[in-house]
């Protein structure tokens, strides 16, 4: 299908651009390391409970996402290549290409954050592995999905300052609250089935937000 080929090409372009300039990857990894260090300094020798650690994890994930996921659209608007892209690609191809780019970026980021948290916080013991992995994967998908269309909105609005987190936070709250709950269960070692309600919410969130974004994207992208 032409749109599929086209989206894949958009994804490739973004990926190649990223590899060439290394902008996002560098800045984001530095951010993640800084965040982990700051939190560790704040907590010192206190041993935070699983639910606190879970909350901290998703806070860092959220802010990392806010630092990195808008770049895919903002760079196009800033460098005036958005028109070039609009000339060659259908809105749907642009949306899915950039969505998948953000999904890959989020998964890499969250893997890094997981690694850091395991190293920095001795209390961050993933006792129920499957729950944790599934939560992080689903959480990443939902995060990328909501963040992508919001990135497009912010880019078209001139991306002034803190607009991106302000817009994103209310939309992401159901995802964050649910993911935090499930992660707490994973850290406490509850059985896989105990988090089934959370998984259902995460999956329906992903479906609803992705479908909604797909329907709305045309109105954001076309002037």
């Amino acid at each position: 299908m032409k749109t599929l080929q086209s989206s894949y090409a958009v994804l490739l372009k973004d990926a190649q651009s990223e590899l060439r300039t290394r902008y996002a990857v560098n800045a984001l990894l530095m951010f993640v390391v800084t965040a982990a260090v700051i939190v560790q300094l704040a907590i010192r020798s206190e041993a935070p409970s699983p639910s606190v650690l879970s909350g901290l994890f998703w806070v860092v994930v959220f802010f990392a996402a806010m630092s990195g996921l808008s770049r895919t659209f903002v760079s196009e608007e800033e460098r005036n290549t958005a028109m070039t892209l609009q000339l060659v690609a259908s809105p749907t191809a642009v949306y899915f290409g950039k969505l998948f780019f953000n999904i890959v970026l989020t998964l890499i980021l969250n893997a890094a954050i997981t690694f850091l948290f395991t190293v920095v916080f001795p209390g961050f013991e993933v006792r129920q592995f499957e729950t944790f992995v599934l939560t992080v994967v689903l959480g990443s998908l939902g995060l990328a999905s909501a963040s992508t269309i919001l990135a497009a909105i912010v880019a078209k609005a001139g991306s002034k300052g803190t607009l991106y987190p302000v817009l994103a936070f209310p939309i992401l709250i159901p995802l964050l609250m649910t993911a935090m709950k499930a992660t707490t269960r994973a850290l406490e070692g509850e059985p896989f089935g105990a988090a089934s309600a959370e998984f259902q919410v995460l999956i329906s969130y992903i479906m609803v937000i992705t479908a909604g974004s797909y329907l709305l994207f045309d109105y954001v992208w076309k002037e």
Partner: protein
Amino acid sequence: MFGKNRVTFAKFGSVILVSFVLVAGLAIPLSPSPQSWLEFPVIPGLEDKARNLFFHVPMSWTAVLAFFISAVYGIRYLRSRDIDFDLISVSAAGLGLLFSLLATVTGALWARFNWGAFWNWDPRQTSIFVLLLIYGAYFGLRSAIENEEKRGRLSAVYTILAGFTVPFFVFVLPRMMAGLHPGALGDDTGKGPLFETKMIAPNMRVLFYTSLVAFTLLFLWLLNMRVRAARLEYQQSLHRS
């Protein structure tokens, strides 16, 4: 926006009803065994605090209604690009901001007197606060865009996107998480958000539903005024340029 007669009806209706509710809700005394219509029964555990219900619930309802109207007119704007729809959408959003602020405050008061603290992160308490955040973000977005077509278009998209998250707050989270609001997990007394089982007294019910109607009329009247003002302002700006 509405016919002249309807507006007058809403104007007087809302002023009269809201005043009535204010007086009745706050002044009618409680008594252990109510004899007449002018006495409320004492609900164990709630007593005077029950009066908050006459205000908090209608305010929350109005905040949600405002959101719904803002979203619907946002959709209409996207389809027709008629600036009038955008004016209605913003006007409704402004009222939504006001009512969700009032609902959050009255909710916090309820929380303080019933559950101990002003804020508990109960899912429903959180969701009316999130509605407030959505309105804040909405106005933040609008103020960042100068081009009126782009502003209407992008803010409509945001409202609709936020609308997609509403079912999660209303249906999913409260049932999933243990909360203090009636109807949440772990609460076996109420059947749902509106704990009708507790408000069995007919005079309380009448006052409650009257309050719902009163606040709705108030909202519609205010909306009408705001839309008319917005339209006038818009016409003026055309002449200035």
